[in-house]
């Protein structure tokens, strides 16, 4: 079930299985909604959430209908009065308390995240959950310092925030949304993605454990309909969405003419640009983490590799050799590099776009790689001979599929990198300082990683240009999405 070979397929190492125990998590057969501080039954249907690595059903989860969403928004509205008037230093202590509980229960959160999402335990354990805790710590400290946020003295919260998050980083996106909202004095109704609802419901327990006042955080589970009902609820003041550009546009239309503020974190097709003077081994690591981290289910993934022509051959040889060492398989195995694709639907989309890549004439390559027989899997894949017109160079695949293009001059690299309706992130690899700053200046993207890639921190604002959405999350700039100027 793992690929451990070189490009010729002969193994370098054999790894013994190193599974993380799942005994630490207690998955109930069914889950309700979390409204006004309590778990309640929904009025509507329920849906199954499955383990994408095995296709086993994990639990039945309530699908919130209009009445459920209304109940949650009303609870958040009631709670807003007290929460927004609470002194910032007291709100801060709730967030600090939550952050500490996240750290204490980090193993449980990480294991459940990997089971429900399919991501490798080493990522949920070392990236998702620690950065989640860091987001609560960071924003806790802001709660009593909002007059320094840059919106003038006495800034005010917006009210009830409707938050809809994706399945690729369920806990991390939850933290990105809830921590700043609460720090600024807003209350929240959040809808986790339909394929990954379980960790949000575990977080609901953490809210209870922290004695967070009822109604400050509410969770409504469900699919697109539930999300649409939530963001279009008339008593919502703020919409925060992370997901596809198509849905982001629909949300922007649905809130037109209202007073609702929106933060939209949408798709991307980031260029990862490697110049001939780049530290090549570091660049290869950056390319690999840029596209294969989290199975490529990353909106800011470096999915378009732009290699300077003079080093393209050497870089491709090194990249293929490195890809051959990637281990695909059991998300709970501590040695796993690439876990399961999150859902059958996403797997079908990745397969379809990869086939289109071949049909349009690009050359496809994957290392020899034995995939598990059940569950949803896709091998790390690279396409060479890709032109800018190819769909695999234009559309977000959201999977472990890299498209490689070449360039000759910095100007051509800029031109190709910016030739996309997206503008979320970009990568630059070169040893020349002035060129880094030149490229960073010219790239139309919200985050530029120079000689690194896929780095995240609560102090660092994240968000896109153009059709990658608007607003920023994290850092001082992220607070602007949850505050308005004081009267």
């Amino acid at each position, binding site marked *: 079930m793992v690929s451990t070979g070189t490009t010729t397929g002969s193994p370098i190492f054999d790894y013994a299985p190193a599974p993380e125990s799942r005994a630490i998590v207690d998955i109930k057969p069914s889950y309700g909604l979390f409204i006004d501080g309590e778990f309640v039954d929904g009025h509507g249907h329920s849906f199954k959430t499955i383990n994408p690595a095995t296709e086993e059903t994990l639990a039945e989860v309530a699908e919130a209908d209009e009445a459920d969403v209304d109940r949650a928004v009303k609870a958040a509205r009631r709670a807003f009065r007290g929460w927004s008037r609470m002194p910032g230093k007291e709100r801060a202590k709730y967030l600090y308390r939550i952050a500490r509980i996240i750290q204490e229960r980090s193993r449980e959160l990480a294991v459940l995240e990997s089971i429900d999402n399919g991501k490798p335990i080493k990522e949920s354990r070392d990236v998702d959950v620690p950065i989640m805790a860091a987001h609560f710590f960071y924003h806790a400290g802001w709660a009593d310092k909002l007059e320094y946020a840059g919106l003038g003295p006495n800034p005010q919260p917006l009210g009830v925030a409707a938050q809809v998050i994706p399945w690729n980083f369920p806990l991390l996106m939850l933290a990105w949304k809830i921590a700043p909202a609460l720090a600024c004095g807003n209350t929240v109704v959040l809808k986790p993605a339909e394929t990954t609802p379980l960790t949000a419901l575990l977080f609901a327990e953490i809210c209870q454990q922290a004695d967070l006042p009822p109604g400050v955080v509410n969770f409504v589970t469900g699919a697109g309909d539930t999300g649409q009902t939530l963001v279009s609820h008339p008593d919502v003041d703020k919409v925060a969405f992370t997901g596809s550009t198509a849905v982001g*546009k629909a949300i922007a239309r649905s809130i037109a003419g209202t007073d609702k503020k929106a933060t939209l974190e949408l798709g991307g097709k980031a260029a990862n640009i490697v110049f001939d003077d780049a530290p090549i081994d570091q660049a290869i690591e950056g390319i690999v983490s840029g596209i294969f981290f989290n199975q490529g289910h990353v909106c800011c993934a470096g999915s378009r590799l732009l290699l300077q022509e003079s080093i393209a051959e050497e870089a491709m040889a090194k990249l293929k050799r490195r890809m051959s060492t990637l281990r695909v398989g059991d998300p709970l195995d501590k040695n796993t590099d690439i876990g399961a694709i999150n859902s059958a639907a996403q797997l079908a989309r990745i397969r379809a776009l990869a086939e289109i890549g071949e049909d349009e004439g690009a050359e496809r390559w994957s290392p020899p790689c034995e995939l598990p027989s059940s569950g949803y899997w896709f091998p790390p894949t690279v396409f060479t001979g890709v032109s800018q017109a190819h769909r695999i160079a234009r559309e977000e695949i959201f999977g472990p599929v890299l498209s490689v293009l070449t360039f000759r001059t910095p100007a051509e690299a800029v031109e190709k990198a910016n030739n996309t309706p997206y503008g979320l992130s970009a990568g630059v690899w070169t040893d020349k300082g002035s060129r880094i700053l030149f490229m960073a200046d010219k790239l139309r993207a919200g985050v530029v990683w120079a000689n690194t890639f896929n780095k995240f921190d609560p102090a660092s604002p994240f968000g896109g240009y153009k059709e990658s959405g608007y607003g920023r999350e994290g850092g001082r700039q992220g607070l602007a999405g949850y505050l308005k100027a004081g009267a």
Partner: protein
Amino acid sequence: MAASRLEVRKTYKLYIGGAFPRSESGHSYEVHDSKGKFVANAAKASRKDVRDAVVAARKAFPGWAGRTAYNRGQILYRIAEVMEDRRPQFVQAVQQSEGGSAAQAGRQVDEAIDRLVWYAGWADKLAQVAGNANPVAGPFFNHSAPEPTGVVGVLAPQSSSLLGLVSVVAPVVVTGNTTVVVSSYSRPLPAVTFAEVLATSDVPGGVVNLLTGDAATLGPWLAAHMDVNAIDVTGVAGDLDTATALEVAAADNLKRVRRAPAAEPDWTAVPALTTMTDFLETKTVWHPIGV
């Protein structure tokens, strides 16, 4: 008997890419003063004029955004200087458009000139106020700074023909955006004179493109244009249906939208920073620290 001299009347035209074309449609419309007396014919901009103006604005964007902030500040200050020089003409145009006394019109003009000076000073300070270093938990240099979003469509206010116009145009361009502006429909003449000032103030052609015409007609083309990055719909203040339709159209490429207020604001108030930051992107750059 000496023949009385025949006055040379001015033809009011559009301002696109640094030139003064007539509307390609050939249409014009009658402009009346505040008492209803005919003053002039103004060019009535068409969809094609909007598209030409967007092309000009896009072409001018990299150069304007690439100027130093100091230089953009100098140029905005230069606009104020030239306006001051033509103050009597502006006072006359504003009084003609908005009515009231010459003193009232004069205060509007003074305020408009001072507004430009205020924004000129922001050019090389805003990045220090809106940007910052980010202390991330790792060995990385990490820094966020504002950047212009690109081409911004502006529907200028309908009532305040000069101060309102300057108050929506200056914050957009001082940060490096370029713009396509639709002036007040019934009070377009101060805008035309303002365009003449822009043309002689070292503002590169295409940075500000000024169209006279109907915001409700031209707004939808601007809002739906896929090469426009943001739109300020102040000019349809009080018309929620039109404002909503524009915001819906703007969602096709996720334009940043500055919504229309319920009524035109008091333009004499000190502007908020959001007049500028609404049309800025935050760019965050990471680099490892090491030897």
